[in-house]
Structures are given as structure tokens and as C-alpha cells.
């Protein structure tokens, strides 16, 4: 097996043996169970006049609630970046675990790419698994199914992978604690940057709007999150957002349009740059 795949396998194996995967699975099942119960209530809780919500109202409420639930899942991925990716290389350097492996015919780039691949597999498992369960539960409870489920999984997965990539890059130089804190703060800052950009759009102020653009260039997590939000919005919600005009955009849980093609291209470039930086940083580090 090529060293890249050996390190990828080792990363997945560690997450599995350290019971991270089983812990996430149990937590996801609990969240899915609770949210299914909650979503079911939307259809059965009567108004003050005793009537039940209409189908349109159920769709409206369910779609908005689903966005908040998925935001929680993206938060789990962000925290995973802090606890899994940020110490991934640094802890093995500090403990000496990597020493005996790097003395083998192994390139440092293979270590970095292998670990990144392992993280990508973990993110994909979590994103696909949790989304499938949650969407199935919501569909069962309310009859609502988001219009673009595949895009939703891809955007949430890429958002998680972006943070994990940042965490991995930081772990080539910083301790796990430092890298984790930086990754988490960067995620929140990018989220706030996106809101500020939206406010700029609402105010039609280009300078404020560019804050959002710049923050998405540095860390595309918020742009990807908006893609996920857009994938979850039914036509009725999009129509209301359009009716609200530019001010309707100043909301981190709303997205009128899917991410532009140029942004998606930038995401590809960003991942390449991040991986390239990680390899360069680790290769030039003295162990």
C-alpha cells in the first residue's frame, strides 16, 4: 500500500479505535431522535383557534428549523477541526511518534496528504451519515424534504473539510491547543465576516460588502455554509427572501442564490493552497 494510503488508513483507524466515530454516531442518533420528535410536533401542535398548521406553514417552519439543526452539525464539524485535526501532526511530533515512521522511506508530503485524505473520509462518513439520518427523520416527521439534498451534503462536508484542512495546516507548526483555538476563532470570524458582508449588500455599501468577500477568500466556510442553506430553502422561502429585497440577505441563515461558480473555483484553489502550505510547512520543519 502506498504510504499516503497507509497514513490515511491510520487516521481513520485512530478515530475508530479511539471511539470518536462511535461517539459521533450515538450523539447523531440522539439528536436525530430528539429532532424527529420536535419536527413531528410542528404538524400536530394546534394554533390558538384549534386548527393545525397548513402544509405551507409546515414547510416554512420545517425548512427554517432544519437550517438551525444543520448549523449544529456544521458546528460539530468545526469543533472536530479543533480536537481532531489541529493536534494531528503536532502531537505526533511532540510525542516522538512520527520519528520512527519518518525514518522510513516516507516523504513528509505523503504524511500530510495521507492524513488529509483520512480526515476527508471521516468528514464524508459523518456528513453523509448524519445528513441521511436527519433528512429521513424530518421527512418522516413532517413530509418535508429539502430541494437539493446532495448539494446540502457536499457543502456541509466541504465546510467541515475546509476547517479540518486549516487545522491540519496549523498542526504542522503549532501545538494542538493553539491550532485548535485559531481554527475555531477563524471559523467564527468568517461567519461574522459573512454577516457583515450581507449588511454591506443590504446597505449597498461596497466597502462593507467587501469585508464578506475578503473573509470568504481567506476561509470559505461561510460561503459554503450559505450554499448549504440555499440547498435547504424551499421555493416559498426563496420567494419571501426575494420580496424582502437586499435587506433579506443580511441573515446568516438565509441565502438567496447558490454560491457562484467563481467562488466554487476559488474553493478548489483554496484547498490546493492549504494542502500545499501544509506540505511546505511540514517539510521545512525540523523534528
Amino acid at each position: 500500500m502506498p504510504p499516503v494510503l497507509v497514513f490515511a488508513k491510520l487516521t481513520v483507524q485512530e478515530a475508530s479505535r479511539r471511539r470518536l466515530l462511535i461517539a459521533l454516531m450515538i450523539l447523531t442518533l440522539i439528536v436525530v431522535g430528539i429532532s424527529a420528535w420536535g419536527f413531528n410536533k410542528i404538524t400536530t401542535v394546534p394554533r390558538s383557534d384549534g386548527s393545525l398548521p397548513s402544509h405551507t406553514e409546515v414547510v416554512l417552519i420545517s425548512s427554517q428549523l432544519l437550517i438551525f439543526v444543520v448549523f449544529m452539525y456544521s458546528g460539530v464539524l468545526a469543533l472536530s477541526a479543533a480536537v481532531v485535526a489541529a493536534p494531528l501532526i503536532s502531537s505526533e511530533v511532540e510525542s516522538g511518534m512520527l520519528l520512527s515512521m519518518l525514518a522510513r522511506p516516507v516523504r513528509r508530503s505523503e504524511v500530510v496528504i495521507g492524513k488529509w485524505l483520512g480526515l476527508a473520509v471521516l468528514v464524508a462518513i459523518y456528513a453523509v451519515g448524519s445528513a441521511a439520518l436527519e433528512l429521513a427523520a424530518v421527512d418522516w416527521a413532517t413530509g418535508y424534504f429539502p430541494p437539493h439534498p446532495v448539494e446540502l451534503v457536499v457543502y456541509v462536508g466541504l465546510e467541515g473539510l475546509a476547517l479540518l484542512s486549516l487545522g491540519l495546516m496549523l498542526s504542522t507548526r503549532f501545538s494542538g491547543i493553539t491550532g485548535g483555538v485559531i481554527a475555531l476563532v477563524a471559523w467564527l470570524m468568517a461567519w461574522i465576516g459573512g454577516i457583515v458582508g450581507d449588511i454591506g449588500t443590504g446597505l449597498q455599501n461596497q466597502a462593507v460588502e467587501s469585508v464578506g468577500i475578503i473573509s470568504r477568500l481567506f476561509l470559505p466556510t461561510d460561503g459554503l455554509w450559505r450554499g448549504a442553506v440555499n440547498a435547504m430553502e424551499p421555493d416559498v422561502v426563496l420567494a419571501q427572501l426575494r420580496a424582502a429585497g437586499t435587506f433579506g440577505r443580511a441573515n446568516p441563515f438565509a441565502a438567496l442564490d447558490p454560491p457562484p461558480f467563481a467562488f466554487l473555483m476559488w474553493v478548489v484553489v483554496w484547498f490546493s493552497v492549504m494542502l500545499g502550505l501544509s506540505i511546505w510547512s511540514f517539510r521545512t520543519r525540523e523534528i
Partner: protein
Amino acid sequence: MAEPASVSTAAAPTQGAAATAPAIHTVDLSKWFGHTIALAGLSMTVPRGEVFGFLGPNGAGKTTSVKLLLGLIKPTSGEAWLLGERIGDLRTRRRIGYMPELFRYQAWLSAREVLALHCELAPLPRSTWKEEISTALDTVGLSDRAGDRVATFSKGMQQRLGLAAALLGKPELVFLDEPTSALDPVGRHDVREIIRELSERGTAVFLNSHLLSEVEQVCDRVAVVDHGRVIAAGTMDELLSGTAVRVRVGGLDDGEKSKLAAFGPRDDEGEHLTFTKLDIERVPELVSAIVALGGRVYEVAPRHQTLEDRFLQLLHEDT
């Protein structure tokens, strides 16, 4: 004193000579960390099949030397070759075993899985893994714990596992960095036996160790490094040709003891003074001097210089 470090005037080994090239050959290998010098111009040659001891106090540059040779860090200047190839060459690493001073292995894997991981990275043909792993575990005495997770291992057992990993694939050169630091006396004895077996089958061993008695028992040749420089090197016979004299003495204070400086470097352990290099002909003179200073001599024991005597003498001379 022996010549410094088998100092080599030889140029780089030629390509064709790789098969017969020395196990290790360095020319003026230096390493600076910022403004701190870790290794100052290491030049040495370790022949194939030799057990080479690399000694020195903490911070002398021993581990830095090993990491430079393995390509884990880059030299500031100088050149080095392992098995005839320049350091950092990936293919050469297939023929090298390494047990780091900081030995930590994947706690979530079993001992057998850790070794399989190293077989994979080495890389060894899959058909040989079973036998390689079984032999390595047997050699270090971990066969009965092969299926247990590393997390359940004591430090000594982890060190044995590290040694097993270094032995996989019958390497031509093995670096052992403080290989017995966590082992009990039985474990140390086992490691000495393993090193002897390696030497018998023609494997060169580069042994970094603080345990001088251990080095003395297994090494063909040693180099003593201090402040990043090799201050002495040679075979045991070359290094330990002198005599040491241990004296049990009373009635001397530190000031009076310092007046015995003419008798060479001295290891002061209270009432026991060891003159680490003193010609046996000067023993009567030494006793007279102690008595003249008001001291009482209870015992005088000349002996062949041990590596510890020599080591302390060299460090004394170096400061």
C-alpha cells in the same frame, strides 16, 4: 588520547563503491539552531558491521547527530553518507533501522499491528511480514503480548517494541538512541545480546547511550562528544590504556583536595577520590602528598581505567 574521531580525509564514497562503502561517513557535519551550535564539524567513519558507541553528556549533540544522519533535520554545513548514499536518500532508509530516544507508538494499535505498520512503511514484501514480526517480537521478548494494545504496555515494553520495529527487515545499519533508558537490568542484558547478534550478522550499530558500562561491554569503538565536538574516539583498547586509582581518604577538606590537581583529573565522591588517569608508578607519590596535606589514607586501589573514568577525564580536560 586517541585521535579525534577516526578523522577522515576521504572524499565522498563513489557510486560504484556503495556496496562496500562505510556504514556511516561524515565530513565536517555541523548544525546550528539559531545562534546555538548543536554539532560542530563532526567527521567520522563507521565501518560495516561495527558497533559504534556515541557518548557524551546531556546536550552534547548526540541525538542531533542521529537526526542529521537520518535526514530528520538538515545540516547547516558539511556532508554525510549512509551505506554509501547521501543522507536523506529515501531508498537507503529501506536498509536502516532506527529506535528513537523518544519512543512512542500508536496506543490504539496492538504490538503486532505497530510492527505491521512499520513493515508496510519499510516497505517489506507482504509475504515476509508474518515471519519478520514473529522473529522481532520473539527477539525482544514480546511474543506473548503481540495481540495486546500498546496502551497497556509499560515504558519498558514500549521500548522493547521500538527495538523490535528497528530490527524489522534485517537492516544493514541500526541507530539505537538510548535503547535501554526504560529497561530493567534483565532488559539491558537482553539488549546487549541483541546488539551482539546484530554485529555477528554484519549489521552496523550506532549506539547512543549514557550507560557507559553498557557501551564498554558491546562497542567495538566509541566517540566521545561534548559541546558538539568529538573530543576523543577510538577502540576500547586505545581509549582505556591508562590506569585509574581509587583512594579512600579522610581528613582532607576541599581546599586541600584541590592541591592534588597535579595528579590529574579527579572524581570526588566524598571520602572516595578516583584519579581517573594516573600512572601506577605515581601512586607512592600520591599517598605521600595526601599524608603531607594531613590526610589519612585507608585504602588505595589501582585499576584499569573504565570507560566512565576515561569519560570523566575527557570531559574534565575539555572544560
